[in-house]
C-alpha cells in the first residue's frame, strides 16, 4: 500500500517535471518566434523608409529636369520647357529685327532710286533743250539756203555749207531722240527695281504679334506647370515625411523585444524554482518509515520555508512593466 502510494507520488513528480520542461520549450519557441519576427519587421520597415526616400528622390529629380536650370545654362544643358520657350522668344525677336533691318535698307534703296528717277527727269529736260537748239539750227540753215539762192552763182558754196549745217541739226535731233529712248528704258528698269524692293520691304507684321502672343501664352502655361510641380513636390515630400515618421514609430515599437527577453528570463527563473520545489518534495516526507504525523508536518513546513525565499525572489524579479506604455522611455 505504501509502496503503491510512493510510486504514484514519483509518477506525479515525473509528470510535473515533464510538463515544466515542455513549458520551457514552448517559452523558448515563443521567444525565438518573436525575435525572428522583430528582425524581419524591422528590416521591412527600414526598407520601406528607404524606398520612400528613393521615390521622393526620383520625383524631385524628374521635376527638376523639367524646370529651368536657373542661369547655369552653360553647365546645365538639359532641355526644359521654360528654356525652350525663351529660346523661341529670342529667335522670334532676332527674326523680327532682321525683317525690320531689311525694310530699313530697302527703304533707303528706294530713296536712292527715287533720286535716280528725278535725275533721269532732268536728263529728259536737258534733251528737250538740245532738241530746241537743233530745231533753231535747222531753221537757221533753211534761212541760209534761201539767202544763198538769192545770191545766185556767188552763193553756191554757202548753200553747200547751209545744207551741211542742216544735216548736223538733224543728226543732233536723232541723237537726242536715241538718248531719250535709252532714258525711257532706264525709267522702266528703275520702276521694276522699285517693285522688287517694295516686295522686300513690305512684310505684314501681324505674324510677329501672333507669334509673340503664343510665346507669352506658353510662358504663362510653363509658370502654371512650375507652380503645380512645386505644389506636388511639396505634397510628395510631406507624404514621405509622414511615412518616415510612421516607420520610426513602428521601428521603436519593435523594441518590445527587450520586454519579451526579460519576461522569458523571468519565466525561466520561475520554471527553475518549480523544478527546485519538485526536487525538494522528497516522497520520504510523506511515505518514510518511523515518522509521526507531527514529524511529517514539520518536514513539510521546512520544505515550504526553504522554497519560500526562492518564490519571493522570483516575484520581485518579475518584469515591472506589464505593457509598452509604462516606462517604455528607458527602452529607447
Amino acid at each position, binding site marked *: 500500500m505504501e509502496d503503491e502510494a510512493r510510486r504514484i507520488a514519483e509518477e506525479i513528480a515525473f509528470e510535473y517535471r515533464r510538463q515544466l520542461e515542455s513549458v520551457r520549450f514552448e517559452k523558448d519557441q515563443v521567444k525565438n518566434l518573436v525575435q525572428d519576427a522583430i528582425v524581419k519587421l524591422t528590416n521591412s520597415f527600414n526598407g520601406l523608409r528607404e524606398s520612400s526616400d528613393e521615390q521622393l528622390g526620383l520625383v524631385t529629380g524628374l521635376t527638376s529636369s523639367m524646370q529651368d536650370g536657373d542661369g547655369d545654362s552653360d553647365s546645365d544643358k538639359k532641355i526644359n520647357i521654360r528654356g525652350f520657350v525663351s529660346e523661341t522668344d529670342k529667335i522670334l525677336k532676332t527674326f523680327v529685327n532682321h525683317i525690320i533691318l531689311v525694310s530699313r535698307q530697302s*527703304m533707303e534703296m528706294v530713296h536712292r532710286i527715287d533720286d535716280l528717277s528725278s535725275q533721269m527727269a532732268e536728263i529728259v529736260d536737258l534733251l528737250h533743250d538740245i532738241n530746241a537748239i537743233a530745231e533753231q539750227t535747222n531753221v537757221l540753215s533753211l534761212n541760209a539756203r534761201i539767202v544763198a539762192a538769192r545770191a545766185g552763182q556767188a552763193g553756191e558754196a554757202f548753200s553747200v555749207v547751209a545744207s551741211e549745217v542742216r544735216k548736223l541739226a538733224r543728226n543732233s535731233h536723232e541723237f537726242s531722240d536715241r538718248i531719250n529712248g535709252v532714258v525711257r528704258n532706264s525709267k522702266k528698269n528703275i520702276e521694276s527695281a522699285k517693285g522688287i524692293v517694295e516686295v522686300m520691304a513690305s512684310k505684314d507684321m501681324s505674324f510677329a504679334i501672333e507669334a*509673340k502672343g503664343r510665346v507669352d501664352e506658353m510662358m504663362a502655361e510653363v509658370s502654371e506647370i512650375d507652380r503645380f510641380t512645386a505644389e506636388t513636390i511639396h505634397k510628395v515630400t510631406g507624404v514621405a515625411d509622414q511615412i518616415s515618421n510612421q516607420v520610426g514609430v513602428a521601428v521603436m515599437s519593435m523594441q518590445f523585444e527587450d520586454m519579451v527577453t526579460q519576461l522569458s528570463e523571468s519565466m525561466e527563473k520561475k520554471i527553475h524554482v518549480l523544478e527546485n520545489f519538485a526536487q525538494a518534495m522528497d516522497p520520504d516526507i510523506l511515505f518514510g518509515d518511523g515518522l509521526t504525523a507531527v514529524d511529517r508536518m514539520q518536514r513539510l513546513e521546512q520544505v515550504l520555508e526553504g522554497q519560500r525565499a526562492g518564490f519571493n525572489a522570483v516575484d520581485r524579479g518579475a518584469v515591472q512593466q506589464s505593457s509598452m506604455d509604462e516606462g517604455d522611455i528607458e527602452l529607447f
Partner: protein
Amino acid sequence: MSGTISVERSDKETVINIKGRFNFEMHSQFRTAYQEDTSKGQKGRKFVIDLSGTEYIDSSALGMLLLLREEAGTNESDIEIINAKPEIRKILETANFQRLFKIS
C-alpha cells in the same frame, strides 16, 4: 488704297499725321514730309508722328521711321509716336521701338 499724310510745322516741331494704311506706297509722301526739315542739316528738331488715323502698318513703315530717325540725327533729336491704336502699338513694341522712340 494707301493713306494720306498731312504735316503741321511750328518753330520747334513738325507733326506728321498719317491716315489710312501706312505702307510702302507712302514712302514718297513720308519722305517729303520730313525732308524739308532734315535737308537743312539742322539738328535737334522734334518730330511727332501722329498715328491716330492709321489703320495698318507694315515693315516698310517701320523701316521709314528708322530712316527718319537717322536722317533727323539719331541722338540729338527726339521723335515721338503718339496715338497709336492697340494693334499698331503692339507691332511697335514687338519691333522694340520703345527703345528708339518715345511712344505715348
